[in-house]
């Protein structure tokens, strides 16, 4: 049933006067995929979703859904469903009326609407709230109502614009899991906009990372985490994000704070680079770079240390055993495959 929902964005540009919101955006989404558009605010990910939904038109480029060019088609003609960040529920209608609205607009026979509404409500566990109005619901319940309205019509594309950002932390984690299960069980193509890298990492099959109106990397969460394409992505993905420090590269080694680290790069020669090491990839002890512990943050089963390495800050995630004290001096090392090198001019990945 999930052969529907293939999306192609081809050379999409969006300009608001002088301001360029999207620069030559290209990507493809396979049917049944959970695809995340990830990026900081103002990076163009929501604009991309609105263009896909048909709420905004691109300045240049083409949008294809299931092989058909829909660039000029209105939202109503695209057969997509969307969950808005604000939920956008109809305030004067009950939950049942909200969920049945897309079915009525699709001219479904009355007799079939009621069971379909109940079924959708049951899937998101709000079947006991059908008579309430949105104003009488909690934020989490409103979010479920918006979800039910989006899944009831069995549209070919399921668009979600930061659907979890208005929920409290605990509810967000619970709903995240349910959302993933729901998408799997319905087998629908989902496009998910978020600024939260953790959400994208846990939910998405693949993701596109936006920076300043451009897609900088498309890949599975594992690929993006393991091999970030640029300094900006490296600094955006991961919690705490990757440590990025100015360093000197020479003949396969990189010099950090005067200490030599081996890398996987072979090229001969000498140049300035930015070296990146994930906080979790740094090892304490052994014959390493000497640094002072400025601050210790205990997170329960792990701790994060702020280290001072010759004036630069480096954060290290350690397990809760053997946590050094503030003011201690520790030695740090890292495996060659854990050291990422970036060009300090182009900000792109070298290795």
């Amino acid at each position, binding site marked *: 049933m999930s052969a529907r929902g293939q999306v192609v964005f081809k050379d999409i540009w969006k300009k608001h006067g002088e301001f360029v919101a999207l620069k030559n955006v290209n990507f493809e989404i396979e049917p049944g995929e959970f695809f995340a558009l990830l990026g900081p605010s103002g990076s163009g990910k929501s604009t991309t979703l609105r263009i896909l939904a048909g*709420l905004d038109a691109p300045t240049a480029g083409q949008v294809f859904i299931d092989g058909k060019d829909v660039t000029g088609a209105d939202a*109503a003609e695209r057969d*997509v469903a969307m969950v*808005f960040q604000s939920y956008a*529920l*109809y305030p*004067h209608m009950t939950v049942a009326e909200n969920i049945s*609205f897309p079915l009525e607009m699709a001219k479904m026979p009355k007799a079939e609407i009621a069971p379909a509404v109940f079924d959708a409500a049951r899937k998101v566990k709000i079947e006991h709230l059908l008579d309430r109005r949105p104003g009488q619901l909690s934020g989490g319940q409103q979010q479920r109502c918006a979800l039910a*309205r989006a899944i009831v019509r069995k549209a070919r594309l399921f668009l979600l614009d930061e659907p979890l950002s208005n929920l409290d932390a605990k509810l967000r984690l619970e709903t995240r899991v349910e959302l993933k299960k729901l998408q799997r069980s319905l087998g629908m193509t989902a496009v998910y906009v978020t600024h939260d890298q953790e959400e994208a990492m846990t939910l998405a099959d693949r993701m596109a990372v936006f920076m300043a109106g451009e897609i900088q990397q498309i890949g599975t969460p594992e690929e993006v985490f393991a091999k970030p394409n640029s300094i900006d992505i490296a600094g955006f993905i991961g919690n705490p994000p990757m440590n990025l420090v100015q360093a000197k590269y020479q003949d396969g080694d990189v010099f950090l704070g005067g200490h030599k680290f081996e890398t996987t790069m072979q090229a001969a020669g000498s140049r300035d680079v930015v070296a990146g090491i994930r906080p979790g990839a740094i090892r304490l002890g052994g014959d390493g770079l000497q640094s002072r512990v400025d601050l210790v943050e205990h997170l329960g089963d792990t701790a994060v240390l702020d280290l001072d390495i010759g004036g630069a800050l480096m954060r290290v995630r350690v397990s809760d055993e053997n946590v050094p004290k503030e003011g201690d001096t520790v030695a740090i090392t890292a495996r060659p495959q854990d050291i990422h090198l970036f060009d300090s001019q182009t900000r792109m990945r070298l290795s």
Partner: protein
Amino acid sequence: MASAGNTAATDVAGVAYSDFGHVLAQRERRFATLLLAPAFLALLATTTFPLLFLIYTSAYRMDLSMPFLNGFVGLENYKVLLSDDRFWHSLVVSLVYTISTVILQVIVGLALALFVMNMKRGQGWFRVIAILPVVLSPAVVGMIWRTFMLAPEFGIIDYLAISAGLGSKNWLGDPFLAMVSVVVIHTWQWTPFAFMVLLASLASLPEDIYEAARIDRASAWQRFRRITLPLLRPAIVMVIIMRTMVALTAFAAIFTVTGGGPGTATEILNLYAYRKSFTELSIGYGSALAVALLIVTVIISAILFAIRRGK
């Protein structure tokens, strides 16, 4: 004994304490009364007293042209009123005038508000120009229409009618056209009020639910019917209530344009009461007419408020 004495002591303290609070509350109340008094007395003198005096007068025969017949008549004025054809006629004119002006104001006001909401530029200017008729005195509006718009041959409306090949019309002399004219004048002056209220209400509607409706495949008409209208309902009902009360008691514009004429074609109840009282100088009967208008207004607004609360 000791414990009993103790309780008594606290009781006394308790009484003293509540006494103190009582005194404070009393002082506060006295001060509030003092502040309220001027407004209250002014209202009493300008609304309550005239109203009671009106009801009192309506129970008397008070005829300035035949003062020797004056005296208490009880409900006699009301008995006459119920079998007075001219009273029933003026009541019908009042209702026709009110219903048609209110419906026109809501429809035209809503259409204008929807139009202005979609204007890309010039919204501010449009609002300023649209609000102008409201700030004019109804008597001035009446004069403008009688001389500038409807005057035979030279009035703008008549000129347009002639240019359109309809020929010169006797706008204020023909009973039907006169009624149409006064309805149009009232609508012209007061539609901006409905327009402003509905525009403010429209502007407060969230934009995202319209995007949701577009994605749910609702057409423009369905979005208006199923979303805009229900959400504007409270504002529309409020406009209807306020405009109905004003239309029922309209006076100045009709008085300056037609004076109730030709004959009694545009003689609303208010105008009939005025003519009886101050043209025919039959103050007692005029008062009874005014009380009848008051009762009609109260009944209609009670019905409208009941509808508003019911839904």
